[in-house]
């Protein structure tokens, strides 16, 4: 699995697949049973860790510490000078819209604003590698959009961004590339488009101009039929062309599409096939 600079990669897998463990391993918190993690061709270690921004799945900061002090503190721990840390803290608090709360204790902030502080902490040192465990969990649509924009921006600035998520529609919208894992092994990796097209499954959707009394596909399985439209799941062994012709023969067609499975279907398919 590769996370190149400038890329934004969604890290997918069912619960217990090993996503969090893999991410923790990058920042050195767990020992690997096997395999290696390298960054710029050298194994990850202290020097890489200070250039890595990490947002753990279980959020948590110091409850009784002013948020500005807090973000500066983590910048300092990442090796920044006091002045740099202060400047970047102000930048990110401003960018995340919480600069007016800079002198509030974390515990006095709403849950959503605490999430923003958490993000500021992982961004303050302008990391070249950004690892985020479920960054969209618990965000309202506005906050999710901010998060989405910032992640895309970081990738565009040349950072390598890896984030895990269960919100597959969000992932499909946000990133070109995904990695799907289960039981600690990579099931699929690559661009969302390629993975979808690589699937042997296709879904045929037909809409007729006038109601059709009854229709059954030549082969494949009928998912839905309601006189105006039909949805059929097809596999590679099915004759797609014959099915299309069969649908057109039933009546005048206003719309006909042949779609590879969506990311969510693909995900279920891959994981179930593995199990």
């Amino acid at each position, binding site marked *: 699995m590769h996370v190149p600079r400038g890329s934004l990669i969604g890290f997918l897998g069912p619960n217990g697949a090993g996503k969090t463990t893999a991410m*923790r*391993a990058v*920042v*050195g*918190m*767990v*020992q*690997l049973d096997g395999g290696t993690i390298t960054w710029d061709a050298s194994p990850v270690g*202290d020097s890489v*860790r*200070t250039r*890595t921004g*990490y*947002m*753990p799945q*279980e*959020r*948590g*900061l*110091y*409850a*009784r*510490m002013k948020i500005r002090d807090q973000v500066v*503190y*983590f910048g*300092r*721990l*990442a*090796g920044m000078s006091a002045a740099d840390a202060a400047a970047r803290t102000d930048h990110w608090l401003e960018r995340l819209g919480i600069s007016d709360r800079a002198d509030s204790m974390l515990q006095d902030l709403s849950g959503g604003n605490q999430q923003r502080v958490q993000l500021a*902490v*992982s961004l303050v040192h302008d990391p070249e590698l950004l690892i985020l465990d479920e960054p969209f969990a618990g965000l309202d649509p506005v906050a999710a959009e901010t998060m989405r924009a910032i992640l895309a921006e970081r990738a565009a600035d040349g950072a390598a961004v890896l984030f895990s998520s269960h919100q597959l529609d969000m992932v499909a919208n946000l990133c070109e590339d995904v990695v799907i894992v289960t039981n600690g092994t990579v099931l699929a990796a690559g661009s969302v488009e390629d993975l979808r097209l690589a699937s042997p499954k296709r879904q045929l959707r037909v809409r007729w101009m006038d109601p059709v009394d009854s229709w059954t596909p030549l082969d494949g399985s009928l998912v839905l039929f309601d006189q105006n439209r039909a949805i059929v799941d097809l596999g590679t062994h099915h004759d797609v062309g014959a099915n299309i012709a069969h649908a057109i023969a039933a009546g005048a067609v206003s719309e006909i599409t042949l779609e590879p499975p969506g990311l969510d279907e693909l995900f279920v398919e891959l994981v179930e096939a593995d199990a």
Partner: protein
Amino acid sequence: MIWTIALRELQTRGRSKGFLAITGILFVAIIGAAIGISIFGGDDDASEVTIGVTGPGVAYVEALEVGSSEIDPTVTVLDSGAVQAVEDGDVDVLFDGSSLTWDGTPRLRLDSYLRLVARQVQLAERAERLDLSDAELSQLFTDVQINEVRLDGGDDGFGVRLATAGVSGLAMFMLLQVWGSFLMMGVIEEKSSKVVEILLSHVRPSTLLSGKILGLGILALLQMLVVTVGVVIGLSLVRDIEIPSSVWATVPLTLVTFLFGFAFYATAYAAVGSMVSRQEDATSAQLPAMLPLLAGYAIAAGSIDNPDNLVAVIGTFVPFTSPVLLPFRTAMSDVPLWQAVLSLTILAGSIVVMVRIAGRIYRYSLLRSGTKVTFAEAWRNRNQVGL
């Protein structure tokens, strides 16, 4: 990095009201106690007393008025209503030549003064009746000289020694426990709030732990210094009591021992703190770290009469008990230099061992939330963490 962490500990703890209040109270209490001792204790000045005499007692007026280093008497001759004067408190005691009348319990020093004077006067009268010459008289009254040989070199001030030993032993026991718990609370706070996961994405567990110990250690030392200054000021306020040299030796030794003891125990407290996930479990979690400290204090408390007994001496070389026993024994008796040096050397070496063992428990347990981590589990998996 360590300094950044230490600085945060210094700032958050040092600014806390609890720390400032405890330090202030300790300082004031110690000086207050010293002032109290010098005013009310001691009996340094001769106490002023009023002695009433009546009947044959009148013959003793001249002798009674002489006084002593402890008694500064005013003698009043009473006739009728002499007993009433005692009851009214006009005189402290009434002497009629053969008996002493008190209103309540006799005052020891005054009582022995009166008996001594009466005895001298009566002896002089008897000598006169025997018609002895002046030379014979003076020979008779020459004091019998009993010399004193003290194998401890005449080092007085057992009370001061005991007080110093008690204070330093108790201070070690309490401060190590208090600061150990502070450290443990900080560890649990970081673990329960999950902030530790971000901390560990930046720094190694050993760096985090070292920073915390350093920060709190500086604060604890500052507090110790304040207390010590209080003790020194207090001791110098105590007038007319000679401070034995062993007491002065205790002060710097206690500071050094505290530093070492803190590093040793703080690591242990951090390890047991990292094994629980909630502040509620802190009390039971700290027992394994606190009991050895308590044992040290118990040995000290049981060794007041004989500070050089075998258990106490052995305890001086055991790192778990030496932080309490070394200052205690130094104040109580003359601990040979080699014992102090050996004790501190063993303690310093044990810090390294403790950091290795407890540090591993700490780094494994920090990321295990949920149920309490057991020692066996932590030790088995000590190498699982990739840092």
